[in-house]
């Protein structure tokens, strides 16, 4: 339930560990509500959400699950370094993590800049840097690549792949269908319902299409 509206009626799914799962669907399809339920900040009217074997939102999960909200949830009146250090201390991450994550999102040299003066893309990178702090086992990212330049987008997807290779579980939402090819598994959503949940190849094979956009259309229109 979100804002008094039932958003996700009878959705049943399991996200595989150690893989990049893309959560794809148009705006308003329930991606954010699903993500909020998984990180435990959404009031759930019914059903169960289990993360790493524990009920979602359990205190123990708060340092094991990292969450990037859709808007860059960082302090615009602090510098890049001040933002990252603050969250690092809240998470109890080691001090050298601050430099590491700033480097990983390509913001070296911008540490002293006020976040409010950064561009939208740079701001979401600060937000992403915060999610990489410490040693999360699950990364949940709500539209992390919106407004980023293609080079950085490619680099980030490459990093997501590397993180998954290290054993992290990533759930990444997007409304851009061409990002689907970068994922291992896909969950296609529309109007709060899960249309398909399979590997990229599996979905293409099942729908007999060549790209995810067509696969999505064929699923929506109920064609074979």
């Amino acid at each position: 339930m979100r804002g008094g509206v039932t958003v996700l009626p009878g959705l049943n799914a399991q996200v595989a560990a150690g893989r990049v799962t893309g959560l794809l669907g148009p705006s308003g399809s329930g991606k954010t509500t699903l993500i909020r339920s998984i990180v435990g900040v959404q009031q759930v009217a019914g059903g169960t959400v289990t993360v790493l074997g524990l009920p979602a939102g359990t205190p123990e999960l708060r340092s094991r699950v990292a969450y990037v909200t859709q808007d860059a949830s960082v302090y615009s009146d602090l510098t890049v370094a001040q933002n990252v250090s603050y969250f690092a201390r809240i998470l109890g991450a080691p001090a050298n993590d601050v430099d590491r994550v700033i480097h990983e999102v390509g913001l070296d040299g911008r540490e002293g800049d006020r976040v409010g003066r950064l561009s939208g893309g740079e701001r979401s990178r600060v937000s992403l840097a915060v999610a990489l702090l410490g040693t999360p086992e699950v990364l949940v990212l709500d539209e992390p690549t919106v407004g980023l330049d293609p080079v950085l987008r490619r680099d980030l997807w490459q990093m997501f792949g590397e993180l998954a290779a290290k054993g992290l579980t990533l759930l990444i939402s997007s409304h851009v269908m061409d990002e689907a090819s970068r994922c291992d598994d896909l969950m296609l959503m529309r109007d709060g319902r899960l249309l398909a949940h399979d590997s990229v190849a599996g979905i293409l094979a099942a729908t007999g299409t060549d790209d995810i956009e067509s696969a999505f259309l064929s699923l929506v229109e109920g064609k074979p």
Partner: protein
Amino acid sequence: MTATRTVVTARRVVQQLQHDHRTVALILVVPCVLMGLLAWMLSDADFNQYGAPLLGIFPLIVMFLTTSVATLRERESGTLERLLSMPIAKADFVLGYALAFGLLGVVQALVVSGLSVGVFGLDVAGPTWALIVVAVVDALLGTALGLFVSAFAKTEFQAVQFMPALILPQLLLCGIIVPRDELPTALRLLSNVLPMSYAVDAMTEVMTSASMSSDFWLNVGVVALFMAVGLALGAGTLRRRTD
């Protein structure tokens, strides 16, 4: 709850203020200007009578507004949601804010009382430290009330409206306009349960008597109690899971 996360949060709020010179300047300068205005327009005797209680009320109002808007901004920007998905206790968040704005309240109280006594000629019978104690406790009460009401405001517009709704009635009933003994019974009883009444009583005693009686400490204690309850309710009304 951990002391570290509380202190780290307080430090972060102070860092934010460091980048916002205009707000800090307004917080420090506006009460001084208002006190100067009072000193100018009132006779010496009247300035002592009205200036002293207002010395406690200005910090309360300023801190109330600052805190309620700051917390609401944190809600709207999504940083609160992010923080609450991390291992931080709700009390860490609330106390961190109280600590940071309390600190600002101390600075404000020192500046305004110093200027009022030293330059505007406010005549204090009691010790200056007592004046500062009351001003600081008032500022902290403002912070606590601000944190509490921000839970009931969905927008910054609403948050600002809580000022006339919650603070102005207290200002009318706290004894500055009509001594509380002379209020109609119902209103007097009402004023008995409003924190500002006790803040003003404490300040009045600082002005009029050389040594602080047990009543002074009782009044300060009541204000501190309201502050503690405000903070507890502020932490209690924070929700990790929202609709």
